[in-house]
C-alpha cells in the first residue's frame, strides 16, 4: 500500500506524579471529533492521563477506544471514574457519558486551563471545522462563532495537501518555511479548489514547499476573517491540531499582529480537557 502521508501518530500519556487512589474526584472528558478523538482523565483537577487517536466510522466505538487507551497505561478502570462528560461532534455517541456538553464551552474551559486565565480570544482549528471563541477569565464563553459548513482552514485540508505533496503531516509546518520568498496565497481556500490550484502550480514547476507556503497563508487568512467577526482581544491562543503547525500559526500571527500563547500541553486535547474539568464540577455538585 502506498504511504499515507496524512497519517499522524496516535499516542497516550500518563502522569508519573499522581497517585489516583488518593484522589477524591476523578473526572474524564471524551471528545469525539470529526477526525480525531481524545480522552482526558483528571484526578482532582490535575491532568492524570490522556489519549489521542483517529475517529473511526463508528462513534461509540471511537469513544470507547479513546477511553480505553487513556486508561491503558494506568491501573484505573472505567468504574473508578466518577463523572464522564462527552463532547465534540460525536458527543451523543459516548455510551458511558454522564452528560454531554457542546465543544465550544469545553474548548474555552480547556484553553483557560492550558494557557492560563489571560486567554480572551481563542481559535480552535479542528479536523473539520473552525471555532472562534471569546471567553472571560473563568473560561466562560462570551462570544462564539463556528464554521463547520466547509473544511477550508481545517486539519482535514492540511491532510489533503500533505497527501498531494507526499510530505508527512508532522513536517509540513517546518517545510513551508524552506522557501526563497513567500508566495501569494492560493486564491481559493475551499479544499477541493485549492487542491486543483496547487496541482496546477506543481505543473508550473513550483517546488512543493512553495505550494505548501501558499496554502498555509491562505488557511491563515481564512481563519482571520472568522476572527474579525467576533473581534480579537489579547491574549490570543490556538487549540486543535493546527496549533501544532508552525507554518499556519506563524503566518496567522503575522497577519493579526498578535503573538499566540504557548503551552506545554497537547493542544489537541483542549476539548476533552475542558469536558473533564466540567465533569469535576458536576461530580462535586452531584455529591452535595
Amino acid at each position, binding site marked *: 500500500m502506498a504511504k499515507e502521508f496524512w497519517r499522524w501518530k496516535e499516542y497516550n500519556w500518563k502522569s508519573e506524579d499522581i497517585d489516583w487512589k488518593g484522589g477524591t474526584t476523578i473526572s474524564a472528558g471524551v471528545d469525539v471529533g470529526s477526525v480525531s478523538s481524545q480522552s482526558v482523565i483528571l484526578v482532582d483537577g490535575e491532568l492524570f492521563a490522556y489519549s489521542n487517536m483517529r475517529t473511526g466510522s463508528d462513534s461509540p466505538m471511537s469513544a470507547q477506544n479513546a477511553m480505553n487507551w487513556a486508561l491503558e497505561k494506568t491501573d484505573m478502570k472505567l468504574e473508578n471514574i466518577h463523572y464522564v462528560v462527552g463532547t465534540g461532534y460525536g458527543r451523543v455517541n459516548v455510551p458511558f457519558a454522564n*452528560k454531554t456538553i457542546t465543544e465550544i*464551552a469545553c474548548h474555552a474551559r480547556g484553553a483557560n486551563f492550558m494557557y492560563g486565565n489571560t486567554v480572551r480570544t481563542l481559535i480552535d482549528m479542528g479536523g473539520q471545522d473552525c471555532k472562534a471563541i471569546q471567553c472571560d477569565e473563568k473560561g466562560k*464563553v*462570551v*462570544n*462564539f462563532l463556528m464554521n463547520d459548513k*466547509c473544511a477550508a482552514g481545517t486539519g482535514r485540508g492540511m491532510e489533503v495537501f500533505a497527501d498531494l505533496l507526499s510530505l508527512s503531516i508532522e513536517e509540513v509546518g517546518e517545510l513551508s518555511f524552506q522557501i526563497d520568498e513567500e508566495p501569494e496565497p492560493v486564491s481559493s481556500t*475551499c479544499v477541493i479548489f485549492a487542491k486543483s490550484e496547487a496541482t496546477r502550480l506543481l505543473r508550473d514547476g513550483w517546488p512543493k514547499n512553495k505550494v505548501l507556503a501558499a496554502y498555509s497563508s491562505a488557511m491563515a487568512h481564512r481563519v482571520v476573517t472568522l476572527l474579525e*467577526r467576533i473581534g480579537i482581544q489579547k491574549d490570543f491562543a490556538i487549540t486543535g491540531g493546527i496549533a501544532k503547525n508552525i507554518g499556519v500559526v506563524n503566518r496567522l500571527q503575522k497577519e493579526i499582529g498578535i503573538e499566540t500563547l504557548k503551552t506545554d500541553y497537547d493542544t489537541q486535547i483542549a476539548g476533552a480537557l475542558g469536558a473533564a474539568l466540567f465533569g469535576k*464540577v458536576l461530580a462535586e455538585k452531584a455529591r452535595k
Partner: protein
Amino acid sequence: MIANFGYKDGSGEFFITIDTDKCNGCGDCIPVCPAGVLEVRENEFDPLAEDQMAAVKEEHRKKIKYSCAPCKSDKSSGSEPCISVCELNAITHSW
C-alpha cells in the same frame, strides 16, 4: 454571551446572533418565524448555569440563508419578524 448561529461561505456571511444577556427565553420569536428556524433551549454554552435562550435549530443552522430567504425579500432589513417581535433587542441578523 453573543451566540452566532450560521455560517460563512463563498456567497457571504449568514449569522443569526442571539445576545443571551438580553434574551430571557420568553419564546415570542418562535411563532412569528414562518420557517420555524428558532427554538428555546437550555444555554448549552454555559453548562453550569440553567438558563433558557432562543437558538437556531440544528437542522437550520447550515442553511439559514435559504430558510430565512422568505423574510429577506423585504428591502427593509432589520425588520424581519423575529427581530421586530423581540422587545429586548436580543436578535440580530448579519445579512
